[in-house]
């Protein structure tokens, strides 16, 4: 596992701040992650974890700071959500958001890496390779049996897996994963951990998580957020030994 410091940086967020109606949700936050790195982001409610993800994915514009992406240091702040997603940033939401009215196959097909422009999509037809890829992803997340079912019929945990599957089908370079283990059994959590660790071998993966046990199992560098900025960064043991971290987060 790369430490990120010396390795090629994939995402470089520096000095971003954003306030909503005077409340500073993000305050001079800087963050960077390497090309193949697993990172856990923890912090109490309201620490700015979701806002941070919103900024990286283009949903929220910061008041100041910069978000640079990839070897060309592309400025992501000038791009919209769809363009950022196409650049290679995939996001999994805390609450599983799949298209409930459509089959698991359709959900995965939609996520599958392909042209996104209306005209191209209109004449796009699933080939044998696409079908094989969908099956492969479905097997990876244990939904191969559920392919023809409507996503709305799936259980909460299965929806989580479907969303992870959609993320995989997108083939992003950076995966932003918000509370992946919520609503999963112990066995499923272990499976998720294994999957995330495996992905981090050739992807950048940011996991936002509340569950400390889960973070411990990820065994990676941890960034602690508090009141919109980075409070501590390092191994889990390092940050949990930090006095300020204990005070604001763990001590409660």
């Amino acid at each position, binding site marked *: 596992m790369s430490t990120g410091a010396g390795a090629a940086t994939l995402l470089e967020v520096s000095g971003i701040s954003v306030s909503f109606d005077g409340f500073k949700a993000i305050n001079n936050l800087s963050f960077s992650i390497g090309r193949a790195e697993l990172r856990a982001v923890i912090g109490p409610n309201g620490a700015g974890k979701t806002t941070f993800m919103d900024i990286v994915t283009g949903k929220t514009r910061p008041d100041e700071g910069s978000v640079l992406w990839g070897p060309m240091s592309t400025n992501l702040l000038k791009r919209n959500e769809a363009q950022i997603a196409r650049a290679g940033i995939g996001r999994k939401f805390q609450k599983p958001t799949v298209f409930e009215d459509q089959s698991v196959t359709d959900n995965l097909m*939609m996520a599958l890496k392909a042209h996104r422009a209306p005209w191209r999509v209109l004449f796009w037809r699933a080939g044998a390779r696409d079908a094989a890829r969908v099956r492969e992803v479905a097997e990876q997340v244990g939904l191969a049996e559920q392919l023809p079912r409507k996503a709305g019929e799936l259980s909460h945990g299965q929806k989580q897996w479907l969303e992870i599957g959609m993320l995989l089908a997108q083939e992003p370079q950076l995966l932003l994963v918000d509370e992946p283990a919520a609503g999963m059994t*112990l066995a499923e959590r272990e499976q998720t951990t294994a999957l995330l660790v495996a992905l981090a071998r050739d992807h950048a993966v940011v996991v936002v998580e509340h569950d400390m046990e889960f973070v411990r199992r990820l065994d990676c560098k941890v960034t602690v957020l508090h009141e919109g900025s980075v409070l501590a960064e390092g191994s889990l043991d390092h940050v949990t030994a930090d006095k300020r971290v204990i005070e604001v987060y763990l001590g409660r």
Partner: protein
Amino acid sequence: MKPGFLSKNPSVLWFLAILACFTLVITLLSHAYGPGVISTSMVKTLGKTLCLCLIAIAMDLVWGYTGILSLGHFAFFGLGGYMIGMWLMYERTRDIVLASAGDFPMTQQEVRDAIGTQIFGVVGGSDLPAIWTFAGSLPMQLLFVVLVPGLLALIFGWLAFRSRVTGVYLSILTQAMTLALSLYLFQNESGLRGNNGLSGLQNIPGLAADQDHSSVWFLWASAFALALGYVLSAAIVSGKFGSVIRGIRDDEARVRFLGYPVEGYKLFVFTLTAVIAAIAGALYYPQAGIINPGEMAPIASIYLAVWVAIGGRGRLYGAVMGAFFVSIVSSWFTGGRVPDLPLGFYTVKWVDWWQVLLGLSFVLVTLLAPKGLSGLVDLLAHIRSPRRGGTPMGPDQGSLQQEEARE
């Protein structure tokens, strides 16, 4: 068409078969080709109804599938009617002018002036406005049927979607557009004869046939356009494009995070459906015979939404069923042939009470049968939608413990 399209969409084949049978039966019972059991005015009503079914399909695409509740699609319908109406009126007036001139030679300019006087005398003018420049050319006006509403939709949609106006605000905006267009056309200065509108459209220039025949031909043309519109729409919604637009309807932000340019999709669907609506209008008004700005009042577009809701949105045949059923029942009730309902203390006159009945059934369908009339098809086909939802179990019990996961 890709192989397997029909097998994946059995409703298309059913629809085409029913439409063909319908057209054939009407033709064989008409005055022109049969015993005349069905009157020519009834043939016209049915032909017009098919055009309304076509615009209902457009509405279903934009609202039922993409989730944009447009209350302005009748503006495009009307514009399409105006574009073809200009040619119909110009050519017919030219025939009259030339006939009355007899052998007396007239220059091109004199003919144009005479046509201008004929058409615009009613609003106190005699000059042909600039927008009538191409009125003498059928190909040009047919092109305008597609281009004018298409461009209006493109510009309007681009401005609205780019600013991410959604939901009820967008509905209000589309309604404002319709109202503005209708009010503009009400003015004599608009160059389309103000509130008089265009009339005499049922007479097709250069066509020697009588109304008995031409009404049946228009029925065929309407049926053909409806069939084409249905197959095209079914092809669009059955593929990945359909997946994406239904995704936009259900969760627009999520589709964005998958990398799809949502605004582009909305603009595409909005413009395409505007063009379909315009074509429907261009077929409708020659059968109606007259078009005036009142046709484009916001209420017409609201009715359109009601048809689609009653028929069942999100299904193409639902939209067709809704438009057909409601407009046929509507013309039956408002035709004054339904016997009054004496209640003793009050007599229900259906001409007045029909709208109340329609409003009531709209509320009832929305509340009790969200699938609308198309739900009846499910009953016939024994399609039961699976029970969804179920209670999510807590994180520790996990997914497979859930009731529905066991089945």
